[in-house]
């Protein structure tokens, strides 16, 4: 069993529990232990874009230092945490001026021989690069035959591309390759990399509802039966707010939205309790029964 430090983040510990539980169980089935780092703190949720904001880099740096104690990798799954942690690690490593500022704030919190090369890694990168999609498909017990899943690429995992170095920003393929490896049919759709409205669901709820509606509608028109994402906020906008769409958009039909690891776990034949489908607001249970997957 290979063990890596794991940063779950606030959302996965509370409101996106289905993503956390299914990730741990899926990785266990694949021979990996996600070892939660001790006393982690919130990553800050938003990478500070202003050049004169240094204090917001302190919190993510703490978790990176903790991971660096016994590994050169830090695994995370929430796209906001991934975005903040990966960009922070990169900035602090490469920009001497910003690095000095952050370290001045942290004083004795900076370990003496800290590891400068901790790579912040998304869980799907472990599956792609260490296990390999071809090897993954050899291990599946329930292929997602006939299940048409539209991969939705959440902005924060791969933009800005120069800092994230995750995927081609105009033509991301990683989830498409994953769905195919799991035996399903991946449905490409025009709005696959469009913003879901993100945190506008706090301040401008109707604006973000329109963004999410456009995405779901586009996926359905392309023939999808479900969507796939790894971001708790996209999941909230695309899944939990569908009731509002039913109430306000004529002709809207609900469509289930899976978390990344729910669907991998399902095809690996994991116990259905560890996948947390009951936490999805639009239940995928009927669809999965129809396809003989439950």
């Amino acid at each position: 069993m290979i063990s890596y430090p794991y940063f779950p983040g606030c959302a996965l510990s509370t409101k996106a529990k289905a993503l956390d539980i299914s990730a741990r169980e899926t990785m266990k089935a694949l021979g990996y232990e996600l070892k939660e780092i001790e006393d982690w703190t919130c990553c800050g949720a938003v990478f500070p874009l202003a050049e004169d904001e240094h204090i917001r880099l302190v919190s993510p740096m703490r978790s990176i230092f903790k991971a660096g104690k016994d590994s050169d990798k830090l695994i995370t799954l929430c796209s906001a945490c991934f975005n903040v942690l990966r960009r922070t690690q990169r900035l602090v490593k490469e920009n001497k001026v910003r690095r000095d500022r952050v370290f001045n704030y942290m004083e004795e919190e900076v370990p003496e021989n800290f590891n400068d090369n901790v790579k912040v890694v998304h869980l799907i990168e472990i599956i792609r690069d260490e296990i390999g999609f071809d090897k993954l498909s050899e291990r599946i017990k329930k292929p997602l035959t006939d299940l048409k899943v539209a991969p939705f690429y959440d902005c924060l995992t791969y933009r800005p591309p120069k800092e994230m170095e995750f995927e081609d920003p105009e033509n991301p393929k990683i989830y498409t390759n994953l769905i195919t490896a799991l035996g399903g049919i991946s449905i490409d759709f025009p709005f696959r990399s469009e913003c879901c409205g993100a945190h506008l669901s706090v301040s401008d709820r109707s604006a973000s509802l329109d963004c999410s509606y456009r995405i779901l509608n586009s996926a359905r028109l392309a023939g999808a039966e479900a969507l796939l994402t790894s971001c708790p906020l996209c999941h909230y906008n695309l899944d939990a707010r569908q009731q509002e769409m039913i109430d306000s958009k004529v002709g809207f039909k609900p469509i289930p939205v899976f978390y990344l690891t729910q669907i991998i776990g399902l095809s690996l034949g994991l116990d259905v309790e560890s996948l947390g489908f009951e936490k999805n607001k639009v239940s995928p249970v009927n669809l999965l029964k129809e396809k003989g997957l439950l």
Partner: protein
Amino acid sequence: MLLKLSKDIVNSELFRSVSEISAQKIMSCYQCGKCTAGCPLADKMDYVPNEMMRLCMLGQIEDLLDSKAIWLCTSCFQCGTRCPKGIEVHRVFEALRSLALREGKNYTDIEELPKEVLDEMPQQAIIAGYRKFESLE
């Protein structure tokens, strides 16, 4: 829209602040409009992203600090990803938001958010939304 232009306005302290906070070469924008074409919220903005860039270049920062557009930006980074001149447009908007917040301009009142919404929404949204409130001191 009537613009007052003078050397002092174009090269104002506010313009220099936006340039410094964003760390972007705003003047290199050549108005191709790719940022606006990719912006998922452009249809709801009072000034679309390339207009905001143009107004910045003309020193009309005060107008932008009062606009709705800067608050509708979700920082999805599409504009900066597609800019052929390599301007991280999203950083320019963040600089405008920062300036507005530092001047004490609020966009949302947290007291007005329904409790059931706050209970359900992932924390990242609430924290990101917080950055649209004047810093609480």
